[in-house]
């Protein structure tokens, strides 16, 4: 890996003249789970102001702004006959986010895929060692396979360029086996804390395991179920197959949560009237979990709703190894949650 001081700086160890570079705008058609590109930056929501107005809380505003341009859930999928590619990126932050490995916050998690089955196999994960924010890495491309790269969960990509060998083609990867998109709305766990690498957040695992596109509208520390957020998610441009809601402990308090949960759900229902909704419970947060569970029990009489209870799901596991801080899941928790979601999607979507 080569570390740079400026994004435009010539590379020393890689012969750039052998490659043609694509920036983020020209890679648009190969980007999945990417709601908005604004001034070259991937964002989840175009306009956060209505959400700011609804909360009227400076701390939540800051957390929303931070998370909004962290491309959790975004994947670059493509096919190429280039034997190698160059990944050149400038990140906002030089250090890992607290409570997670560098490979999760700032990692580009690379998979290669079988073109006929769509099955993905992990190849490698790359991230610039601290304290670096601009890097270039040459990556081997497995012949005959497509490539999928999960973007960082907790770092903003300020600039990106993908280099393909001159004369070689860049084309679309095969379509997902399921043609509908699963939307996720959630908190720090949904955003990826604390998976070991960016591809191991549970929404990303669902995408790979179930074979579908996902969009991850997660806002670490700022998931508060605003109606304006529901409106923003409701206007997602993909053909949506299901919605996963992981909204709980970021509420200011239990009272706020209880007052917002149903209206948030009902607003989303206006956009997705018959779609399956999956509610994720709140791990080790009894009041929140109970409210979600009771809400689910009431709603299931008439609506297509499902409930994943992390307390039950994790009951037999080593409680200390399961999460990094009694809240944020390691890969162990991430895969358990993802498996449960995939099970539900297999019969509901």
């Amino acid at each position, binding site marked *: 890996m080569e570390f740079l001081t400026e994004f435009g700086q010539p590379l020393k160890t890689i012969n750039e003249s052998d490659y043609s570079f694509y920036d983020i705008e020209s890679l648009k058609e190969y980007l999945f789970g990417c709601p908005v590109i604004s001034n070259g930056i991937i964002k989840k929501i175009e306009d956060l102001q209505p959400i700011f107005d609804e909360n009227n809380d400076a701390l939540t505003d800051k957390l929303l702004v931070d998370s909004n341009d962290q491309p959790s859930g975004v994947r670059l999928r493509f096919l190429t006959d280039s034997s190698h590619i160059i990944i050149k990126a400038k990140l906002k932050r030089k250090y890992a986010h607290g409570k997670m*490995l560098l490979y999760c916050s700032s990692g580009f998690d690379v998979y290669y895929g079988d073109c006929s089955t769509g099955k993905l196999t992990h190849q490698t994960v790359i991230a610039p060692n601290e304290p670096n924010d601009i890097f270039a890495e040459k990556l081997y491309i497995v012949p005959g396979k497509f490539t999928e790269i999960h973007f960082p969960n907790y770092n903003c990509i300020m600039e990106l360029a993908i280099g393909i060998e001159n004369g070689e083609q860049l084309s679309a990867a095969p379509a997902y086996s399921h043609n509908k998109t699963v939307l996720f709305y959630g908190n720090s766990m949904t955003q990826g804390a604390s998976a070991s690498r960016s591809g191991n957040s549970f929404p990303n695992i669902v995408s790979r395991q179930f074979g579908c596109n996902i969009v991850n509208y997660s806002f670490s520390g700022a998931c508060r179920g605003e109606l304006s957020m529901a409106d923003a998610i409701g206007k997602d441009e993909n053909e949506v197959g299901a919605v996963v809601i992981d909204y709980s402990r970021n509420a200011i308090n239990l009272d706020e949560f209880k007052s917002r949960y149903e209206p948030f759900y009902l607003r989303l229902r206006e956009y997705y009237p018959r779609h399956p909704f999956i509610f994720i419970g709140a791990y080790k947060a009894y009041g929140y979990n109970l409210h979600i569970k009771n809400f689910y029990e009431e709603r299931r009489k008439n609506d297509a709703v499902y409930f994943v209870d992390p307390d039950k799901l994790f009951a037999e596991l080593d409680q200390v190894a399961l999460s990094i801080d009694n809240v944020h899941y390691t890969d162990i928790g991430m895969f358990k949650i993802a498996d449960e979601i995939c099970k539900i999607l297999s019969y509901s979507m």
Partner: protein
Amino acid sequence: MMVNGITHIVRNRQKVLKIECATGRNKETQTLYQQKGNELLDYEIYCPVKNTLTHASLLVDDEAQMVAPEKTDAPILFFGGPTTFGRGCTFPHGMYSSIVARKFSRDYYNLAMYNSRYLEKKYISTAAKAIQNPCFVAAEICSIPITKEYIAQKLDKYLEKLTECFCRCPILLVSQPYDGRKLDNYIECGKIVRAFAEKHPERNIMYLDGKTVFKGIPTDRVTLSAYLTNDYGNMVLADRIIKIAEAFISTI
């Protein structure tokens, strides 16, 4: 973050109250836990894994009791390389050594090396001077980055020293779980272990071949990168070791 910071776990009799990682990374003084009552709580503090701790002190309330936990007579001893060191883990308490020790409620020593040059007799003899009666020893003897030539050169003498120094307890030899990327070192390792066991049938050794540990589990679940085992992989490995150790640990 397990590299630089302090990780701590706080428990009462019923449950884990708090787990926190990378404490002190940017701060001089940090509160580990604040309780409302005066319950006797169990604190477990993990030091940085790959950094030097030059100074540490614990501040407690003036009236607080400090009770040393009961130390078990026979701790578990772990030797090895990158996998046992915890490379690929998010935090120290996710390492397979920690999980195994927690399961058996035993003290443990993790004497693994960060790199791949770990089949050295001197590590065994040094440890044996300080820790005479472990309840069992788990030793990683083969890892993906290790070369076949290094194994051929070192492993037999390493096993000789290991079984000689810790002749009174079961020894579990472990090769890193793998997915078929590098076979020749594992074949060499298996050959040497079998030959050693035949030469020394009286020595209490068992071998957990890494090729079987992740069988049926997709690689991306259990690995962080090309050769590092992640938290999930450490849990799977720990479960396998626990199943083997359960057979003899109750008699110790």
